[in-house]
């Protein structure tokens, strides 16, 4: 059983987000980076499957500049066997189609049975990479995985739907599943894991970046002209105005 886990290094939730001089993207200096939140759950799911199976291989894969080796090492420290680093020196790559294409080429020869990736990344939030990789490799795909059940050559995925609904979907392997946070309890790397990670293999590939089809022209802090609208009057008047606000302005009723 060969399982790939696609992970991404993203700015931490409390990290400052300084913009570069022409506001076309962030200025990498001064950002503290972490593993993307959902990816922790993807790694854990892969490791649990490997442990339940008794054998197999978990490979951590990430695309980005040299600094992403930090999250790759985290994955190795938690128990992944080896890693692939698709080194792209751009900080500002915002095209999931291209990211997924580069990742696909990097792993095409590996013939993974399963690919897990986070549902979406905390920086761009595109939520496409895992599905596109699966599709390009001709695999079955499913998104918003809340639980997985593996059986002979097949996998069942519990997908989260809107409004509190769920749905089980089965498919044959190979499959690429995007994982939602909360489906398991991610482990913390043990000391032995951290030490051992230093010796595990990271295969670095350096493909060319071309054919980018979507990009950010400008990034900026949204202007919040938050003027609190005070609703006044008698109790009945206020209630009426509230209902109207819910209905017509906020549109929740």
């Amino acid at each position, binding site marked *: 059983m060969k399982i790939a886990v696609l992970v991404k290094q993203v700015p931490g939730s*409390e*990290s*400052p987000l300084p913009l570069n001089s022409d506001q076309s993207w962030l200025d990498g200096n001064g950002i*503290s*980076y*972490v593993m993307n939140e959902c990816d922790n759950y993807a790694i854990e799911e892969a490791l649990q499957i490997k442990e339940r199976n008794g054998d197999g291989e978990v490979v951590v894969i990430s695309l980005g500049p040299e600094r992403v080796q930090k999250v790759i090492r985290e994955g190795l420290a938690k128990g992944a066997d080896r890693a692939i680093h698709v080194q792209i020196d751009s900080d500002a790559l915002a095209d999931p189609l291209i990211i997924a294409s580069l990742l696909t080429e990097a792993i095409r020869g590996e013939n993974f049975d399963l690919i897990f990736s986070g549902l979406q990344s905390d920086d761009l939030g595109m939520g496409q990479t895992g599905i596109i990789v699966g599709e390009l490799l001709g695999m079955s795909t499913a998104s918003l995985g809340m639980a997985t059940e593996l059986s002979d050559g097949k996998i069942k995925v519990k997908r989260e739907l809107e409004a509190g609904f769920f749905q089980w979907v089965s498919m044959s392997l190979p499959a690429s599943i995007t994982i939602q946070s909360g489906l398991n309890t991610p*482990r913390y790397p*043990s*000391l032995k*894991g951290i030490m051992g990670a230093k010796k595990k293999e990271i295969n670095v590939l350096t493909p060319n970046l071309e054919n980018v089809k979507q990009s950010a022209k400008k990034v900026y802090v949204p202007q919040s002209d938050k003027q609190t609208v005070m609703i006044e009057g008698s109790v009945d008047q206020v209630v009426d105005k509230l209902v109207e606000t819910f209905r017509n302005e906020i549109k929740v009723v």
Partner: protein
Amino acid sequence: MAQVEFTAIEKTILTIGILTTLGSFIYEIWRRLRVVFKGKQSLPFDRFGARLWRVFREVFLHEKVIRDRFWPGFMHALVFWGFIVFGLVTIEHFALGFGYELMSPKTHKLYSYIVIPFSIFVLIGIGSLTYRRFISRPKALGKISLTSGFVALFISILMITYLLGETNLSPNVWRANWWIHSLIILAFLFLIPRSKHLHLVLAPVNIFFKPFELPDHTPVNIDLEGSEDELDSMLADLTQMTKNQTLDVFSCVECGRCIDVCPANRGGGLLDPKNHFILDLREPLLEKGNVDVLSDINVEAGWECTTCQACTEVCPVGNHVEKSDEIRRLEVLVEGKVPQEYQKLFMNLQESGNTEGRSDSPLAERLPTYTPDKEYVLWLGCFARYELDPNFTKSVENFANILDVAGITYGVLDNEHCSGDPANRLGDKLTYNMLREHNMEQLAHASKVVTLCPHCALNLEKEYAKYSEVNYDVTHHTQVIGQLIEEGRIEVRKGSNGKVTYHDPCNLSRMLDEVDAPRTAITATTDEFFELEESGRNTLCCGAGGGLWWKKETTGRTHLVRAEQVVNSNADTVVTGCNFCYGMMNQGLKPLTPEGRSEIQVKDVADIVSENLVSNSHTK
């Protein structure tokens, strides 16, 4: 009085009886001591005089036993002093069995004038303790203990048979009485090492060896460049108890005082320090015959501990009860099983050097920067730096104001990282060492450090010193303020804050042994100061220690127990000396304050002093 000649058969039986029970007594003790000696490190003999003095006070004077639970403590003291007095009586008793009179009838009679009253005291003592244990049944004593029942019975019979023996009995009755007394003593000998009554032997020894440092945990040195073998042996070491810890387990008298003072237990949590940290390890130690038992500590209970050391402080037999450090470091370093909220905390500490994952501190920017010509490094700590409770920010500024008024120079380090207390108490010794090494570099040219956070102070001063030599002095801000007031370098007037009380932070009062300075400071500002119950070194932790400030779902009300006491004390103002305590009071007091009562003011010592400073500087 020897009215009777014992037959040869009797003497033989007596000899056999003594030899077998004494033999079993010695064997059972040896069995346990053998395990103790397998423990790590050595038993401490430093500060010999101080150790002896402590044994004298805590054992012979029963100081702690009486002070912390007065009536049961005093009753126990009666039994104990009676036991001491009976030492000579028992030797004389058995000597008689072999036909030797150790005392002349006159001496015996004189001595009996001392012993008889003591035997009455013992009967009163054991009677009331029996009532307490079997009828009142306080929760801390746990299930009904059969051995305690036997012991109560034995002691009572011994006293009664002694008293009878001092009256005029016919020879046969006297003989029977003598034999009953002897058999009970032999049964006692048999029972002692197999039960909690082993404390009779071990408590004085254990109290002698009790560490002076609080808390006392072995440092965990991690060499990331070391070999795999070195790492393996270090990890294997983590499950081994020290000699002192092992001795603790066998000395435990099961009184449950540690349970009574545990904030997690009081808050309805799972943690029961008596069982989880001590008694659960007794069987494993004996069964395995070695000290490799730390992984037997209940993990869930271990995560609930606030590391406040109330249990250690109150233990009458000198146990260092708390072992959350040991089980947490196993879970983190060996198992990788860390609650999610703590994983985020550790990541933040590793990535950004602080608990919040932030990089900007408006407070730090407003304060002067440290340069070696300034007297103090003002160490802020993450709580103040990143405004974990925004109200506390002004407390730091109030302290800065006091320093300004007193003409003391200070500055903050611009690359101050978290002192590491959360990582240290939560078992992530790897991250802790990273932070420690960074901070040691930042403090390389410092000589005096002052901080408002007792957790930082404890780590910078004592915990860091367990790893490498520390070349600076650390003071807590209340100590500086107290000293300034005593030396007259600042003048404080009495203000009006209503009825004022003080909540002792556990890290400050117990672990840094500072209870006076804050009181000096507070009583300079008010005439209406009163003490809370459980104050000073016996303070009840606010519930934020041990990393629990960052724990999201609280099972139980650990974080509210102390706040509730403050509300019930009818104070108008509660002063505290720790930012965590400050934050906890802010969170806990409002929901617990009944409708109609005005809000209790929460102030830091720096606030109440700064408000009442007689000076030209503006106060906040």
